[in-house]
């Protein structure tokens, strides 16, 4: 029994944790929100969100068990993942597939090429360098965030519910990245969406939270429609959705990069539509900022480090397909770049600390797609991996600040917290420097490599590079705006809050420190080729992913034919831009805090447009929600009630009318005729009736008279 044979256990541990929470959680953690809120006449306290208000409950033994069990399952997954990846590294073919059983064992059908295929998919796992990176990120960052949550969620109702959902999420996320085919990937894909729904709506009694959850779910389903179609096309074209088989087919002689819109380009585009939903890209990014209604650890784990990167993972997983679909790849790059700059521009002016980070995430995901679009898939994954460290760190740090301020999220009521929260400050500073792209920190290596690839790759362009560069400047600016507003300057919160502000307990700060170390060091496995002073060991990340991206690597082989001077120049440019962004933020928010206000007043149109997020939500609301869904639904209900039922009721009326008519006919014509006959009979029989008196004497008289008449007749003859 090796770890590789046990990879099916990796997702199973957190599933077991979730199942235990589902069935026993309430018994373990009897302190129910219902118990608090159901006191007669007391509505759910609006301050449920405010931490520490629910009362410092005694952590009972059940609660302690939950705190051990749920992070424990993720730790077990982490250990098994490390074991499996270590064994994988020793395999010459660097790939290990484990099929448990045939899951969808559907009917046979004929593919587009006329060959026989079966509509089926495995319940199977694939561990290769790409999924190895992903499971390490998911379980590693996931474990740290679980630990952090013990402190962060400690005073909240529904503790078991929270950890149950989180464990369930980790299960689905691991299914997503370990699946050996698109259909099973889709199980994880939908599963993480469901957990995201449940966790965004964790404070379900808050309307805004449940609205945000709804929005996330529905917007994601729209993207999923594209994904499903893409998957169907894949079935139809290749007869299979297993990664290995699809890639083998694509590597065959029948396929070459498509000159225009061919079947592969459409297929790739449909898959990418799915990715825009899950990874919050334009035009489907609108759900992610709202998703910040969820508890902060959720934002860190799901909406920064793992789930939202699923789209990037999926595109990188499909690199063989995308590299044959240049038209689609162009769209991917453009959408990525556009989303990156759009979201960064919105982040410049937001005041909610979590929203800034949310838009930052959207923007960074844009970078990853930009990298995918220019064929630099390994760089996208590299950025995904470094981003997981510093973005999780920044969210958890923000959570620590919010925790310290009793639930405050508005940066206009923060400031001067540097001394109060030193660990949070220094770790977040490391994260901010990393995301800003300061040389030596994780974000620098990945972002700089993206920019270089965008410039130098044959699929890249200078225009995209410029967009990426401007975004980098904006990133540095909004991150340091956040840092200065939060930690520097004078405290702007009320005295009470300030007095209570305190550094978080070690259970929260230790994960921060670990992530900060990651943010500083994680990039050193992807050092630029330009830095020839470093041996190749410092560039192991690209080599590690090579087996997964052979085809893409072959296509991008002619990249990097530019001279070293250009590369140094661009690197210097991006560092300068980052430093410039930090400097502007310093001027605006430390030196001359009145400047931003003046600037906003001098260009109110632009400022309000940015503050209102380019009014995209309003447009969507008017067109899709009110127009299509509500308007269409109402119109069709009316159609049913008036037209279809109108027809039915009209028929009913017609039936009644005709029946009235036949009643009339029956009464006057048919019955009339009958009565006429009877009347005629009556008239005719009247004289006869006169005779029928019923008196025997009369009959006798008539009889006698009759006899006399007859006899008289004969006598007269």
């Amino acid at each position: 029994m090796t770890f590789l044979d046990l990879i099916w256990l990796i997702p199973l541990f957190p599933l077991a944790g979730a199942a235990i929470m589902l069935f026993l959680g309430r018994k373990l953690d009897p302190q129910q929100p219902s118990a608090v809120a159901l006191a007669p006449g007391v509505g759910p306290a609006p301050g449920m969100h405010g931490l520490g208000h629910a009362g410092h409950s005694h952590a009972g033994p059940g609660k302690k068990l939950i705190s051990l069990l749920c992070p424990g399952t993720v730790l077990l997954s982490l250990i098994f993942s490390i074991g499996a990846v270590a064994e994988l590294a020793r395999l010459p073919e660097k790939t290990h597939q484990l099929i448990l059983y045939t899951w969808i064992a559907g009917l046979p059908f004929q593919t587009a090429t006329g060959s026989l295929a079966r509509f089926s998919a495995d319940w199977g796992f694939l561990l290769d360098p790409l999924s190895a990176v992903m499971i390490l990120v998911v379980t590693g960052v996931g474990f740290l965030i679980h630990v952090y949550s013990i402190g962060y969620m400690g005073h909240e109702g529904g503790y078991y519910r929270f950890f149950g959902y989180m464990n369930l999420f980790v299960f689905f996320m691991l299914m997503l990245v370990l699946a050996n085919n698109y259909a099973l990937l889709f199980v994880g894909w939908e599963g993480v969406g469901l957990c995201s729904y449940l966790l965004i709506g964790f404070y379900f009694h808050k309307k805004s939270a449940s609205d945000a959850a709804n929005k996330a779910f529905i917007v994601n389903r729209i993207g999923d429609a594209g994904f499903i179609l893409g998957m169907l096309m894949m079935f139809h074209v290749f007869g299979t959705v297993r990664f290995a088989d699809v890639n083998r087919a694509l590597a065959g002689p029948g396929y070459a990069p498509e000159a225009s819109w061919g079947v592969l380009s459409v297929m790739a585009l449909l898959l990418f539509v799915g990715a825009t939903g899950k990874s919050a890209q334009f035009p489907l990014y609108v759900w992610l900022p709202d998703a910040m209604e969820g508890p902060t650890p959720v934002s860190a784990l799901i909406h920064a480090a793992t789930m939202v990167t699923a789209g990037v993972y999926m595109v990188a997983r499909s690199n063989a397909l995308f590299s044959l679909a240049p038209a689609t790849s162009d769209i991917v790059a453009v959408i990525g770049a556009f989303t990156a700059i759009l979201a960064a521009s919105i982040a410049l002016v937001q005041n909610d600390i979590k929203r800034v980070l949310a838009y930052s995430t959207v923007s960074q995901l844009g970078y990853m797609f930009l990298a995918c679009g220019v064929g630099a898939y390994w760089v996208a994954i590299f950025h995904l991996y470094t981003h997981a460290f510093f973005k999780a760190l920044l969210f958890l740090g923000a959570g620590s600040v919010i925790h310290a301020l009793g639930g405050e999220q508005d940066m206009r009521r923060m400031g001067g917290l540097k001394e109060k929260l030193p660990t949070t400050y220094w770790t977040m500073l490391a994260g901010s420097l990393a995301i800003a792209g300061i040389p030596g920190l994780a974000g620098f290596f990945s972002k700089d490599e993206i920019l270089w690839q965008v410039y130098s790759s044959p699929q890249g362009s200078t225009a995209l590079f410029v967009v990426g560069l401007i975004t980098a400047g904006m990133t540095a600016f909004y991150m340091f705006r956040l840092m200065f507003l939060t930690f520097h300057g004078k405290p702007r919160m009320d005295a009470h809050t300030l007095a209570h502000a305190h550094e978080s307990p070690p259970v929260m700060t230790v994960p921060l420190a670990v992530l900060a170390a990651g943010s500083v060091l994680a990039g050193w496995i992807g050092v630029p080729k330009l830095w020839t002073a470093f041996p190749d060991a410092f560039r192991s990340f690209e080599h590690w992913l090579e087996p997964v991206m052979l085809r893409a690597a072959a296509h991008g082989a002619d990249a990097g034919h530019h001279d070293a001077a250009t590369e140094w120049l661009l690197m210097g440019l991006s560092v300068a831009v980052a430093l410039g962004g930090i400097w502007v933020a310093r001027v605006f928010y430390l030196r001359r805090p009145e400047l931003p206000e003046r600037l906003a007043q001098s260009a109110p149109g632009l400022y309000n447009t940015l503050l209102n997020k380019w009014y995209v939500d309003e447009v969507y609301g008017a067109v899709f929600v009110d127009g299509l869904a509500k308007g269409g639904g109402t119109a069709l209900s009316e159609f049913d009630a008036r037209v279809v039922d109108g027809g039915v009721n009209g028929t009913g009326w017609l039936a009644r009318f005709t029946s009235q008519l036949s009643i009339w006919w029956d009464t006057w014509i048919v019955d009339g005729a009958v009565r006429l006959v009877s009347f005629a009979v009556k008239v005719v029989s009247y004289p006869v009736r006169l005779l029928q008196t019923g008196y025997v004497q009369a009959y006798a008289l008539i009889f006698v008279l009759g006899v006399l008449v007859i006899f008289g007749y004969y006598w007269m003859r």
Partner: protein
Amino acid sequence: MDHILSIVLLTPLVGFAILLAIPSSKERAIKIWANVASLAGFLVCLPLVFHFDPGRDFQFVEKAAWIPSIGASYHLGIDGYSLLLVVLTALLGFLSILSSWKVIEHRLKEYYAYFLLLQVGMLGVFMALDFLLFFVFWELVLVPMYFIIAIWGSARRVYAAFKFIIYTLIGSVLMLLGILGLYFEHYRQFGVYTFDIAALMRTQLPPETQWWIFWAFFVGFAVKVPMFPLHTWLPDAHTEAPTAGSVVLASILLKMGTYGFLRFSLPLLPDAAKNPQIIQVMAFLSIVAIVYGALVCLMQKDWKKLIAYSSVSHMGFCTLGIFTLNPLGIAGSILQQINHGISTGMLFLIVGIAYERRHTREIAEYSGLLRVMPVYTIVFLIAALSSMGMPPLNGFIGEITILQGAYQVSLWWALAIVSGIALGAAYLIWLFQRTMLGELHEKNAGLGDLTPREIAVFAPLLVAVFWIGLYPKPFFRILERPVAQIVERVQPGYYARHNLPNPLVRADAGGTVTPAVR
């Protein structure tokens, strides 16, 4: 084993007869007996499952003379398709009776009597291999359902019951005309009067005749499904009926329509069924139903009516699958019929439980039920996810199979389906939000969670949801042959033309080598 189908059919009938003998005053005895009888009705089905051979067509066949003078016989038999529907009927029949334990308070004896009678009719429909027998069972279903809606329904029950009966009667009459047309045409050609379906299949019908008979059948079956625009009886009937009535209506009665299409319209009238005009009309009506039903759902204020309209949308998937006329589409359609029975049945039971506690169906009256009814909420969530086709639950398997079949016909059909999938998520998740999440109304504060009896009602359905979702293989295996029968009948040589292994041709017997399948 020889008379197993008769036993299955007669168990509820015997239950019905004994029930009539129990005095009306003994309410508890009536309830217990009705539950026992319907549970027995389910248990006697189990041998069918264990002895069913997926490699053969109609099994457990019984045939006896009934009205020899006109060629009608008591002819029963089931194939894989019927098997699934028979088991579903027996299971949901029992569960709906079990779910009625506390809700029905007056005229108990009649209520349970109608349900057991209904059970006989529905089982008969799915077993009959004689067209007249089928028609008798078909009509037998109407009467008890009419009374169930009209007596135990809610405020507008009489209107709803009337609408239901008028719609279906008109459908039945036209269907009977179609049957008689076939019957006499068969006599003209063979000189024998018979209602036997296998015999009627041998009739050679000119395409025009098929065309007319198809439309006559269409009205009968489309009303039942219901297909747009013959669907407006459904929201009323489903909404007004008592919970158990809605469950049976949605889960089983609607399947009689799709069953009719697959068992009669397609195999008996293959030229009409593959007429491109007819296919286009059917696809159009199905797609309209999918999108239309979903959009109407979005704007419903009545919880039960929303679920009712969702049936219109979901059954649109099933009819579209049928008219792909390819194995995947038809197999997906059948599977989705079963799935719809399970998940919509659950959704109606869920509404029923809320209604039982609060006596209102207004969505706005509920919110935050998660706080007081957590188990109920979980069950609702699973049912909603299953209904919206979330993997790895049952609905996903059915929808994706239909989709693959539809995609082979046209990308537009597939697009229509996925739009329905996206909208399905929207109305269901929004319903979930409005009822289960949010602030708890004070008037809902005292609601109790599911009782053990209610959990027992949901448990088998939940098992089915996960079973079909995680291990659908046995279902596909059972369906392989009936589907091939239908496809080969409508498009002879389909399997050979598409290089597919024909399940009707045994590889060992005929020498046809089945190509290796990945």
